[in-house]
């Protein structure tokens, strides 16, 4: 039985300011894949993720993707809303309802249940990122595009992140992650973005 790729990329190279950021890449992302994007600062990791999310339109080549969950440097949390309200809004964006119970469980899993009724704007950066992780748990999207998810995470949150990603991949999802520090996940592949080398994944 052949698996449908969640993402198929063909000779994609992102551009910014008329400049090509990296050599064209091609890859196919199957359910269960965890791919780490590696490259120096400014090599285009964020731009690649934004392109795959549909936020960046300057590129050559092509890609075909299922609806993805994207998390960039900005978390996408409204500071004036509580985590519960933010998660309800995210669910609405993805056109599905999440019941109260499930949402609370997700917040519990990520360790911010006690803040469920506080305003996100009053939380620390690390706590907000935990709320964002709860969003991933509730999302129906199979493909995750994460840009530097380790930022501002303490040790236990980093472990949590690793577990969450591992579980998602085990359930048939896929994660493409740009990170400076490697995350130890079984079966991970690396995609190197470099202006002079093209890395093609099997």
């Amino acid at each position, binding site marked *: 039985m052949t698996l449908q790729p969640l993402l198929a990329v063909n000779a994609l190279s992102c551009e910014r300011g008329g400049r090509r950021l990296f050599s064209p890449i091609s890859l196919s992302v199957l359910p269960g894949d965890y791919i780490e994007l590696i490259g120096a600062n400014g090599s285009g990791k964020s731009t690649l993720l934004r392109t795959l999310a549909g*936020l960046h339109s300057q590129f050559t080549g092509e890609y075909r993707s299922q609806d993805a969950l*994207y998390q960039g440097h*900005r978390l*996408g*949390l*409204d500071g004036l809303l509580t985590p519960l309200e933010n998660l309800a809004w*995210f669910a609405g964006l993805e056109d599905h309802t999440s019941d109260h119970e499930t949402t609370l469980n997700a917040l519990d899993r990520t360790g911010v249940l006690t803040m469920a009724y506080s305003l996100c704007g009053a939380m620390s950066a690390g706590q907000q990122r935990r709320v964002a992780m709860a969003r991933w748990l509730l999302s129906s999207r199979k493909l995750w595009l994460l840009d530097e998810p380790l930022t501002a995470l303490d040790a236990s949150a980093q472990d949590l992140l690793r577990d969450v990603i591992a579980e998602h991949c085990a359930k048939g999802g896929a994660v493409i992650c740009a990170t400076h520090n490697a995350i130890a996940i079984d079966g991970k592949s690396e995609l190197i973005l470099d202006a002079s080398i093209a890395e093609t994944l099997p």
Partner: protein
Amino acid sequence: MIRGALVREWQVLLRAKGAVINPLAFLLLTTMLFVIAAPDAITTDEASAVAPGVLWTLVLLTQLLALDSMYRRDFDSGVLEQTLVSAQVPFVTVLIRIFMQWLSTGFIMACLGPVLGVMLGLSFQALPATALALLLGTPALSLLGSVGASVTVGFNRGGVILALLVLPLFLPTLVFGADMVMAAQAGRSVMPQVYALSLISLVALALAPFATLAGLKISLEMQ
């Protein structure tokens, strides 16, 4: 999704009432400044000649002030990019945002318009027309303003550029809106201006959401 978006807009509105109150306070303040600076303009009979234009100009400037923050919060927090990535129909979200912006600014100015008009020396017979003119014209201001706001949201001090882009677009509404009030004062029919204001708002409704979405995409790519 529509329900979710509306719920969020409402929650934000309740928790950041300043976004509504501040522009209105500005409108009240500037009206007062005018009255203090030019007291003879409102105590003489010529008052009614000046008042429509002054009222509408102040309304325009208030709208400009409110526009600056129309997309800024969501842009800075990442909510905007989430919307464009995850929403099936981002267009609807834009419409909802514009509608809420109008509801919290233009609509309230339409309600307050008669009061301010009286302060500026408008004759009483023109007050219903004043409210109607503002009601018909302010949607155009929110719609067209949204286009300018969408393109300038990423700028550091985009307020001035926003004004430059958007005030020429406001001009037709200003012309017909002020004229409608003047016509009402003179006892003439206001139907031509009603048609004109409605037409402008409808044309804006047809154009502005698409242009806004395009502008937001451009601004997000600048991030």
